[in-house]
């Protein structure tokens, strides 16, 4: 069995995606990944959002998957000539103007500390901050949903204060509960499934953020603003 890690793909903030201009590679014959050059920041992501809107409208596209300063474009059929597709994507990227998505604001009540905050002591050690300061820094920040992925409804949130940065674990927690509020590298998020998880838990949120039966199954969408609101602090 493959133990799939929930949100196990962290922001790999150390490595710039591509130097200079955007890079396009393929996965199989139908999927093409465009990676933006430069920093992992809101400016690059805004251009990805713009690119997503353009590519989504192409008649030969089956599906698009925006990632972290990148976009996977899945075509309905394998193209005869991949170079044409690469050129189209690069041209669309060059023409993509930064847009800001008019997202909604989601407030997520969090029970900081307590039985689910298994990694809070380690983060205190790493950050050289008290648990109370870490909780304050985490809930005072405003986050943007850059993209969704990895688990149903899981949002990659940008905007973590560098003071509470914590790399993901080399040995993941085997059974982290759905709802754990976690930090993975320079990102934060809420675990959507119970299971193996390499991020670091500092609290717990009961809010249901994914409903497969709903016409809009995921509560979060790219561009949304997220705020964590302390419902309880148990330190």
């Amino acid at each position: 069995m493959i133990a799939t890690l929930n949100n196990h793909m962290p922001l790999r903030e150390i490595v710039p995606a591509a130097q200079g201009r955007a890079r396009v590679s393929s996965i199989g014959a139908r999927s093409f990944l465009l990676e933006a050059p430069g920093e992992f920041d809101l400016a690059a992501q805004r251009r990805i959002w713009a690119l997503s809107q353009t590519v989504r409208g192409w008649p030969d596209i089956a599906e698009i998957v925006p990632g972290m300063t990148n976009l996977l474009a899945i075509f309905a059929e394998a193209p005869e000539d991949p170079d044409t597709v690469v050129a189209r994507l690069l041209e669309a990227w060059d023409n993509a103007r930064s847009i800001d998505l008019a997202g909604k604001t989601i407030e997520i009540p969090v029970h900081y500390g307590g039985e689910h905050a298994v990694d809070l002591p380690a983060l205190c050690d790493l950050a050289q901050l008290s648990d109370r300061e870490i909780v304050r820094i985490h809930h005072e920040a405003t986050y943007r949903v850059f993209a969704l992925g990895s688990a149903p409804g899981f949002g990659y949130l940008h905007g973590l204060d560098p003071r509470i940065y914590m790399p993901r674990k080399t040995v993941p927690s085997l059974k982290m509960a759905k709802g754990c509020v976690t930090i993975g590298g320079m990102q934060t998020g809420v675990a959507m499934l119970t299971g193996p998880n390499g991020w670091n838990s500092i609290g717990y949120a009961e809010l249901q953020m994914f409903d497969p039966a709903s016409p809009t199954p995921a509560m979060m969408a790219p561009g949304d603003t997220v705020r964590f609101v302390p419902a309880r602090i148990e330190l």
Partner: protein
Amino acid sequence: MIEILETGPFNTVQDLGRPGYRDIGVSASGAMDPFAVRIGNILVGNDEVAAGIEVQTFPFSLRFDRRTVFAVTGADGDPMLDALKLLPWCAYTAEAGQVLELKHPPTLARAYVSVGGGLDVPSVMGSRSTSLRGSFGGNAGRPLVKGDRLALGNSADFAPVPANGLAVIEPAVALRDVFPDFVDGTLPVRALPGGEHALFPDDGDAFWSQTWKISSRSDRTGYRLSGEPIKPTTSIEMRSHGIVPGVIQVPPGGEPIVQMSDANTAGGYPKIAGVIECDLWRLGQARIGSRIRFVRSTHAEARAIEQAVARYVEDVRTTSEMIKRALKAMA
């Protein structure tokens, strides 16, 4: 209704999957051998996307509680209807009370049971496939267990299946010019170099030239391959990006992972290659412990194979309909 009489773990309701929701983190799921599902559905007179049962742990048996058209496709081996040995890749009509039994197939991995009208489980996000990880879709979001009863949809088929059955020349035989056979017991799987291929020395030679074994830690999410580990010249980590089934990632240990039907929607490991979509069904039929080798392909070749598959499927559809119509008129 059909009732599950006997099943191993991990047999699930599957259709052609739930594409279109990767951007909210939902895996596409769907049959590991979608080709077998398409052909099975056509034989029983369904739309190609109807849901059936993916059987990957045997033996498996079910009882029909009313007259039902069905077909078993995919893995090799002869299914049994009561005491009668049936042909695989053949649609038959079962009478109420009859029991269909699937024994362990000799060489392949997964058999598909298609039924006239399809399995009438609720459609979730446009698909009846079971998402094991998300615990939704299919039969209550979980594998089938003994005693499960599944409703059947209404068959819209215009003509009955011939009394002696309606079979098809299976894809591996009909398209043997398109899908090369095993070479010394090793399945050739065609792939295209992936985004980080250039990071692997000697043009990825260690990857392309060795024979990989599908490890026991493999399932519908992905196949872990055992072999001589391959390492990139520099260790890099990618920003999280969308992935699809077929992507071949190389985690730090150096043993590649091929994502399959329940593929995660996002990844960040270096991608050395990607299996072409129209070869994924063959990988889906490769068993744990079997050997595979990757063969470098091109987009043009992948397109030509896709077109050959589309022609074959269309030929099966039109010819089977024509035959059923003709036999009905002459009956």
